[in-house]
């Protein structure tokens, strides 16, 4: 069954997967090659630039996870999930199969980044105090993909009713936020919430931190 689901998911997303894998492969190479020319002369500047390039890794992970999660459910959603729900297997198992297939199709993206990171750092003459982290950055990218795909997958699998409820909750929250801002300008609920989500142990904490292919 998993093979069958992987097969149809691959047919649906192969162009996207290929494009994402290519981007993941190119990202570390471009980030190093663009700045390395004068790096030996000004390594701190190069590292600063590399830190900016580091922002693209979580962005790529988010884009890949969102696109593939949406693509995973698009066809089922179009058929109002009838086909999926008529298949003779427990529904939770179908969801897990879909999830597993999605993860398997994300693997090429993670592997491409790992390969790209190695290709980018091969043959660089780094000072003794500076090291390259192709494996570590690929591992961080992979775990971020895993997390973001899980979240996107859950959102994409939600029913229209659940999405409606979620949108209403967000709308209510924004209304409360505006009201609180008007009553107590120093209390920024939105910022507090964003921080809670982005800082450990928030769900998006793994996106933070340093995404350095080359670092001290």
């Amino acid at each position, binding site marked *: *069954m998993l*093979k*069958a*689901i992987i*097969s*149809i998911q691959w*047919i*649906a997303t192969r162009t996207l997967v290929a494009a994402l894998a290519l981007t993941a492969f190119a990202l570390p190479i471009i980030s190093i090659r663009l700045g390395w020319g004068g790096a030996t002369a000004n390594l701190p500047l190069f590292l600063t630039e590399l830190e900016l390039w580091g922002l693209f890794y979580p962005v790529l992970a988010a884009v890949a996870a969102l696109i593939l999660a949406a693509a995973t459910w698009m*066809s089922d959603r*179009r*058929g*109002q999930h*009838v*086909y999926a*729900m*008529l*298949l*003779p*297997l*427990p529904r939770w198992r179908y969801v897990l199969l879909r999830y597993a297939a999605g993860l398997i199709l994300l693997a090429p993206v993670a592997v491409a980044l790992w390969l790209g990171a190695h290709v980018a750092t091969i043959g660089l003459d780094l000072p003794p105090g500076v090291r390259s982290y192709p494996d570590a950055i690929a591992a961080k990218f992979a775990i971020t993909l895993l997390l973001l795909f899980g979240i996107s997958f859950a959102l994409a699998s939600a029913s229209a009713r659940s999405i409606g409820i979620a949108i209403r909750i967000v709308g209510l929250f924004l209304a409360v936020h505006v009201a609180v801002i008007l009553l107590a300008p120093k209390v920024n609920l939105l910022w507090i919430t964003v921080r809670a989500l982005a800082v450990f142990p928030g769900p998006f904490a793994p996106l933070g931190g340093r995404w350095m292919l080359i670092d001290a």
Partner: protein
Amino acid sequence: MSLAIETHGLSYRTSQDFGIEDLSIAVPAGALYGFLGPNGCGKTTTIRLLLGLLRPDAGSITLLGHRVPDQLPAALACTGVIPDRPHLHRYLTVAESLDFHRAFYPRWDPQWAAQLLEDFRLRAAQKVAGLSKGETAKLMLLLALCQRPDLLVLDEPMDGLDPVVRRDVLAALLEYVSTHGATVLVSSHLVHELERFCDWIGVMDRGRLVVELPMSEFRNGNKRIRVSTDIALDVAATPFTILARTRDAGSTETWVVRGWEPEMTGWFDRGGVTLRDVADLDLEDGFVELLRAFRTERAEGVPSC
């Protein structure tokens, strides 16, 4: 009599003013069960309940001996379904759709699938999105049949199909039923379509079951009779149910009756009424009269059936 589908007191509210109410149906194993009713009467909702696509508010469902929804996967493993709307993955080709589908059904018959593909003149490389309505219907039937189900649930399968496609679909369906002895529940609002092959019918209206009986009983029990009478007749005293009564010219009346038995002609002799003519009703006429009587009864607050 073993039952392929059985529901008891099934209720499901779809909106404030409509819902399935206290629905109890029993589809015998091996029956070709025509599920009739006008558009919007609750046939599709009932089928969705049977297949576990909706959760009933009350009542119980048994499909091939499996309780729904608790044992739904076991029930669905032996059930072929054609839903009311196409639900296949549109980006797949016909061959890819077959490959995907067969992975879930251990009893899949690849030879027959190849045969049907040829019979239905479906191209394996054709994308599902590019299939015509008739081709889509054929593909859905192919998928439902080749999994070798014990039960086929078909929701308006002929709707919108041209006669040629209809004939192909029906032929394949009947061939399967005749060779495998499967049960078929087929819903339609096209009554004459079902008349040709169904041996049981259930009629729904406004979320309720109007009648459920063997086709033979329906055919033989529902009659259009012409009588002559000069007296005021006590219709409550008749041994059959008068569904409709119209006065023709003079003292002649035409009655549509239900529960007719040939030996009831003796009642006319005793009651001073002359029976002039007894005619069979076709399914469509019987269906229309049944609905008319049902709606009248409900409007007057008389319990139906």
